[in-house]
Each structure stands twice: as C-alpha cells, then as structure tokens.
C-alpha cells in the first residue's frame, strides 16, 4: 500500500522531471506533447487568485495560445530572444495534493489527480539572473500507461511584483 503510493510518486516525479528537462532544454514540441489537447496553463497575477476570468493573469493560455507562444519563441525574428533566455528548474517537494482540485480556478479540468510541487526556477538573460519560486500544481490525466498534463498552475511568490519581461514558459 505505502509501497505502491511510493511507486506512484516516483513515477510522477519522473514525469515532472521530464517536463522540467524539456523546458530547460527548450524542446518545446516535446514539452507541449506532455499536455492534453484541452490543456490550460495558468500563472495568476494575484496571490491565491480565484479564477482566470475576472482578473488578469501572467499566463492564462489554452493550447492554441501555448502553440502561438512556441511558434513565436522559436521564430528567427523573435529578437527579444536574440540573447537567448536560459532556465534551470528544480522541481521540489513533489506531493499528491488531495485538495488540489479546489485551486483550478473554476476551469474544472478532467484529471485523475493533482500533484503539488515547489518550483525554483533560475533564469538567465543577457548578463543577469533572476529567481522565480512558488507552488506548482499539475492536473494529471492518466492516458493508457502514461500521464498527460490537463492543467498547470504556478503561484509565484512575487506574482504581483513589478516584473521585467518573461519570455518562456515557467
């Protein structure tokens, strides 16, 4: 019982680590392939934001907008990226989050479980680094013998601070 719980969490960790690796290596197509067709990617602009439809969000993207962002970032003329942005994700404190559903902002994604982890993201651009940190939640849907991400939400501790441009997915 505990063992199996343990097994599960290991498999989930592997899955989240893979997502982070794809982000850090800018392998966008493979990254997006981890998401469901009806996925939603949400980074609120307010701590504990209720929903993505009553107030602005740093990111509130369905698959269409995620695809557009990827086309753009990989486009040769995305000059904001001519000094490339590099990222390094630590996915920490991975836990099954029984109450996670409550934070779906009313989007009610179809998912089999919600995983909560701590995101520490170091970003480098031009000659500066900055750090992002907060709680990441993944709504995972079981598909055959693998997972897909139906929704991802990241609550950054500095979500409402003045910020310089963010180019990539967190």
């Amino acid at each position, binding site marked *: 019982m505990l063992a199996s719980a343990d097994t599960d969490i290991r498999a989930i960790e592997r899955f989240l680590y893979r997502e982070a690796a794809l982000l850090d290596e800018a392998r966008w197509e493979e990254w997006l392939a981890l998401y469901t067709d009806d996925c939603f990617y949400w*980074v609120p*602009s*307010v701590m504990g*934001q209720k929903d*993505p*439809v*009553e*107030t*602005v*969000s*740093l*990111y*509130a*993207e369905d698959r*269409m*907008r995620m*695809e*557009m*962002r990827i*086309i*753009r*970032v990989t*486009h040769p*003329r*995305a*000059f*904001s990226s001519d000094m490339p942005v590099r990222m390094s994700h630590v996915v920490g404190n991975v836990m099954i989050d029984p109450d996670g559903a409550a934070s779906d902002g009313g989007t009610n994604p179809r998912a089999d479980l919600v995983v909560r982890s701590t995101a520490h993201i170091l970003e480098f651009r031009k000659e500066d680094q900055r750090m992002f940190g907060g709680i990441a939640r993944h709504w995972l849907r079981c598909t055959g013998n693998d997972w897909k991400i139906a929704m991802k939400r990241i609550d950054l501790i500095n979500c*409402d*601070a*003045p*910020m*310089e*441009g*963010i*180019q990539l997915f967190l």
Partner: protein
Amino acid sequence: MRYDSATIASLVEPDRVHRNLYIDPALFDLEMERIFGHAWIYVGHESQVKNPGDYVTTAIGKQPVVMSRDAQGKIHLLLNRCGHRGAKVVGDREGNVKLFRCCYHGWTFKPDGSLAGIPMASGYEDTRLDMKDPKYGMCKVPRMEIYRGFVFGSMSPTGPGLVEYLGDAATSIDNMVERAPEGRLEVVGGCFRAVFRANWKIFLENLNDTMHPMVVHESSVKAGEIWAKQHLPEGAPDPLPVRFTRNNGFPYAFWEKLTLRGHKNGHSYMGGIFPPRRTDPVFLSYVEAMEKSYGKDKTEEILSVDRHNTIYYPNVSFQSGYQQVRVIRPVSVDRTQMDVYAFKLIGAPDEFYRHTLIYSNMVNSPSSIVMTDDHEAYNRVQEGLVAQANDWISLDRDAGRDTREGDWLSSTGTSEMPMRNQYQAWARYMTQEA
C-alpha cells in the same frame, strides 16, 4: 551638470532631440520637478475606491500618493507621509479604513488627510504644533480633478484645469466611457506591473509609433499567421489571439492611412487597428446591450469612433476598444514602471469582459508575446544611446508636413509627428523655471 533654460531649449529641435534627454540623471531630476511636478498626472479610477474608507496607493512621478474616499464619498489624493516624523503611513496597496494610522507613533488621519488624533496630545500644548495645520496631517496633493471617473493629480497649486489640459483629446476618454451600456467603467481585480530598463519618454514615443509594429512584433505576427495557416480553413475569421498578434503585421499602406493627431499639450492619438465592429456572438450581444441603452444611432456613433492608443502627456495611454489603460511611473533615468489596468464596461455581457482580459493577457502582460518585444526595444534604445556616435536622435519622418488645425497637428499615419509634438511640450515644461 546644471541646465539653464537656454541650454534645455537647445536640446530640442523641430525634427530631432539631443541624446542627453534619455541618459542624463540631472535632466531626469528636472523632469520630475518641472513635468511631473506640474502637469496633470493620471493616478487612478474612482472604481478603485468604491466605498467610503477605501484607499489605494499610487504615485505622481516619484511622490508616493494615496487615493482615498471619505465618509461623504468624496475622493482625496494624499501624499503618503505622516505629519509627525514623516513615516510612510500606508504600507499596503489597497484596503479600507476608518482612519489611517501611522505605524510609528499612532497618529491617525481622516481619509481626507486631516489629522484626527495624537496619542497624549497634551504633550503639544503651547508648541508650534497646530492640529488644524495641514502640514501635520497627510498633505493633500495640491490639485486633484476627476474627469468621467478618471482621477488626475497635479503637484502644482496653479495651472490650467484638467478639462482645459486634456482639451478635446478628452474625446477618447468620453468614447471609452460611452462604450459601457450603463456609461460607467470599473477596474476589477489586479493589474499588471511591468518594468523596463529605459527612459520613460521612450515609452511615450512608442505608443503612436506606427512604423514599429511590423518589425518589433514580427515574431508574434508570424505566430498568429503560422498558427492560423496551420489550423484554420481558408478565409475563416481570425480568433482573437490571432487577430491580436497578426494585425501588427499589416502592410505599411495600412498604417500610412491611419489617422494621427497631436494636441498642443503633448497628447496624441492614432486610428484603430482592429475592426471596430466584430461579428462574434459576444460582440453582437454587446451591441444589443448598447442599443438598448443608447439606441441604434448613438450606438453606431459611439462604436464608429475607432482609435487605438491615445496618449495623455506625460504618463498615461488609453486604448478604448479593449478598455486598456497603461500608466507609467518613472523610476530613474533608465528605469520605468508601467501599470496596466483592464476596465469592465458596466452593462456589457460578462463574456465581453473575458475578451478584454484575453487582450490584456496576450498583449499587455509582462509575459505577453507582444509587449515583451516592445520593452526589449526600449531597453535596446537605452543601451544604444550610451554610444557617443552622434548627439542627436532623428525625428525626421514626415517632418515639415504636419498640418495644424487649432490645437491639433495632423499628419500621415506613419509620421513621427506625435514625438515631435511631445518634445515641443517637453521643452515648454522644462524651460519653466520656478
């Protein structure tokens, strides 16, 4: 270096400006004094302080300001500083209070800034302190005026009134308000706070700069085009995200034909770049609501006012079609904060506001695939101007072709007239000593 008026005047020519305007901290300090210390500065909207006791913190240049609403419902602009020993009284961004209370010695202030109470006031008998003297309260911003719900403040006790100042550039505000079936707007939830590493004037230059979109935004234009080609049947209407990105890629001929008008006080606006009438059900039900309030003709009239960015010099830009207001706070000569607010049109269907948010999130977020390119362009200008190559920045495009009618200059849609116009206003402010 200290600047006298003659020197300052010599930095601005009709078709070019001196590089120091963007990089000299001494000029920046003078700007805070002579422009942000005199002009009407946008500070917020009534709806941010709906109820008695509500307050929000804002700024005029580098001055920390509180906008509050008193028990009688009157709005006040206060400098965020205690009359005792100067502590910043309000630490959070917004809230509701009966009295403001200073964290240091507990002096309290009414929402109108007047001193309400001092612990052990007996200590002040027979001293210079006079509880009625506003100096011992939270001082008022010398002037405040509200135009159709939009609150402006001026650090100067004298000068033209707000209405005179806005002139009929105010029509863009009028139109944004009238676009609400109930004629009222509302700020809901949070706002974006973005920061770029460039002088504040570079942002103002950009707002009516119609020669930049197809270049700066090329990658998001392509994102919209490529996505559409991949996913949409030939000739299908653009979903909003596609429209919001690809429209920046319109041919030069399109931009050249846009209206472009500059007001003598430094304001300006450009014509719209999105189809003023959409055909999606959300928009149609919105039109329905409009017609119910205003009738067909008036609605037609309101919706036919088609403007993109309207700049009110020196710190705010309105985009009425998607109800976006962008406000800047200069931080230093090479750093600027920009706050972006999305407004709700009272009386419009909820779905309509969703579209407003889609615009905000896609176009005006710090993580937007559109705006980040603008900000990088500003940063690039600031980085480039370090080079002493040449003391002058060109504003030559269509120079000498502006036509004046009353308070207004008009030009072709791709002219640099709006910037020339801004710097004429800049020179006027900056050469007013005192």
